[in-house]
């Protein structure tokens, strides 16, 4: 079996990875940290875009899979001294398994009901994080070991490179997928499910596989996040984070893999700007008030650019 060296998505991703790998040597630590976060969120959103943009479904529970990946990797590392490299594989596997089991309930539902079901799943899993003392309960999980390569323990720069290397791999895989029969069939079921069924396409199985794949992306991202932060608690994987992943998908453009990255970058950057600006404008505003503004931005984008920023860009290129 021989693999394609790189599709167009993969080639661009390699260039972006090279830019990131070079930039981290010049950027102040704060920006390197943001870059890492954008990479981790991009990975989740690329997976979510397969499920939302191509299969045409909505998941409001993606943060739960990030959390499952993070907690699995953390438990493996702390309690069983498993290297985070294997922890990431384990995190992805457990997230995939949970997604697979849940899909038998959730994917029987359609559209809005499916969105509500995934929302409920996310909340229930977050409750488990909060209540399960074995994984630290509400006080969370501390001193999660970092990634290592030989004697080298990853520093913030290495995490930025790692997260963008995973984005490159993730976008390469997804890029192959969307151009294959598999990707076309996903588009077919999102456009006309009954029509595709009449040709012998099993929409539930397709959606299930895509949902599980999106959980794998989220699980890997979660494992990297856990080691990068070295501390996780249930609030890191709340419903708000799930909403943010949907925001990233929609802002970037649903049927676009690079849109996922653009969306993640915009939401992270906007979050930082709002965090700095909101207290200046509204000194009494506290906590998640920035989410209010993020919501306003989303509504504006939905009205002005219904196909997202990437959709707008590709239209401009064609025109």
């Amino acid at each position, binding site marked *: 079996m021989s693999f*394609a060296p790189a599709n167009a998505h993969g080639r661009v991703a390699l260039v972006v990875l090279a830019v990131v790998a070079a930039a981290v040597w010049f950027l102040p630590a704060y920006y390197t940290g943001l870059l890492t976060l954008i990479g981790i969120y991009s990975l989740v959103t690329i997976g979510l875009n397969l499920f939302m943009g191509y299969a045409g479904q909505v998941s409001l529970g993606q943060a739960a899979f990030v959390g499952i990946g993070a907690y699995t990797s953390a438990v493996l590392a702390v309690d069983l001294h498993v290297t985070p490299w294997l922890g990431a594989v384990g995190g992805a596997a457990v997230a995939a398994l949970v997604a697979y089991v849940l899909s038998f309930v959730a994917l029987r539902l359609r559209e809005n009901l499916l969105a509500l079901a995934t929302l409920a799943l996310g909340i229930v899993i977050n409750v488990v994080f909060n209540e399960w003392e074995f994984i630290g309960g509400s006080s969370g999980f501390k001193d999660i070991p970092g990634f290592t390569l030989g004697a080298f323990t990853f520093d913030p720069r290495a995490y930025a490179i790692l997260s963008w290397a995973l984005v490159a791999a993730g976008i390469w895989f*997804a890029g192959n997928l969307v151009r*294959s029969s598999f990707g076309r069939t996903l588009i*077919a079921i999102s*456009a006309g499910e009954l029509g*595709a069924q*009449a040709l012998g396409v099993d929409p539930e199985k397709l959606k299930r596989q895509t949902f599980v794949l999106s959980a794998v992306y989220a699980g890997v991202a979660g494992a990297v996040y856990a080691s990068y932060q070295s501390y996780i608690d249930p609030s890191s994987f709340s419903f708000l984070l799930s909403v943010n992943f949907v925001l990233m998908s929609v802002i970037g453009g649903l049927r676009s893999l690079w849109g996922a990255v653009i969306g993640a970058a915009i939401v992270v950057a906007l979050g930082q700007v709002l965090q700095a600006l909101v207290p200046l404008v509204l000194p009494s505003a506290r906590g998640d008030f920035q989410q209010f503004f993020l919501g306003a931005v989303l509504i504006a984008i939905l009205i002005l650019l219904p196909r997202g920023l990437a959709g707008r860009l590709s239209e401009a290129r064609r025109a």
Partner: protein
Amino acid sequence: MTVAVSATTLEVRGVSMRFGGVLAVDDVTFAARTGEVLGVMGPNGAGKTTLFNVISGVQRPTAGAVSLGPVPLTGHSVDRIASLGVTRTFQTPVMFWGLTVRESIAVALAAREFGGSYPPPPARALLVAGLGTQGRRRADAVLNERADALLASAGLAHMGDRATESLAFGEERLLELARALAVEPVVLLLDEPLSGLNPEEVEDVLTLVRAARTAGVAVLLVEHAVGELLSVADRVVVLDHGRKIAEGTPSAVAADPLVIDAYIGDELE
């Protein structure tokens, strides 16, 4: 095809479909043979589309059963029934927006490639596609070529690169029909394939229907254009108020007083 093709292909036995107090299909029995066009006619509300929905698995009948050769179809999902060899088109064509015409056909061919159902078990198809293995990429390229060949044989060669969003209504009908033929069905259900078409497009569709018949497909045709239906059908089943009131050759059915009554009665109502 895995299904043994016998002279009697599709059997509908005692099928009834009740919606609340309405018996939309009432104890209907008939069979369709390979290589024939079986017209299904009847006035508005006679139960034709409901009958198609029952055969194709969109709705489960209240009573009765449908089978393909020795294989029972009743109770299976639409995609399972399609994978067994029974496919259909819709009164309003279902288009795969986001795909080109060629890609729409390739979706059907991919389903066909894997024994009539997609995705094949287990998740290997996903992994092979995502890793972009040479074999898979070649196979997808072959699907595109085969899609082009199919489009050419349907007289749609010029449409391959067009986005499905840009098609006119008649082109949508032709694409949906070509897509259904791409899965090489044993039984093909066409729900009003001529409505909304200009005379030229009507001829195109009828040509495809006759070609399918020659290829051994059992074509079931629901159509309001009675003239065209009687001209293309080998046999005709007539429904009225959910009941089968006649079955036979087009000329015999056209002369049947019960049939004339049903149509004229419908116009007087």
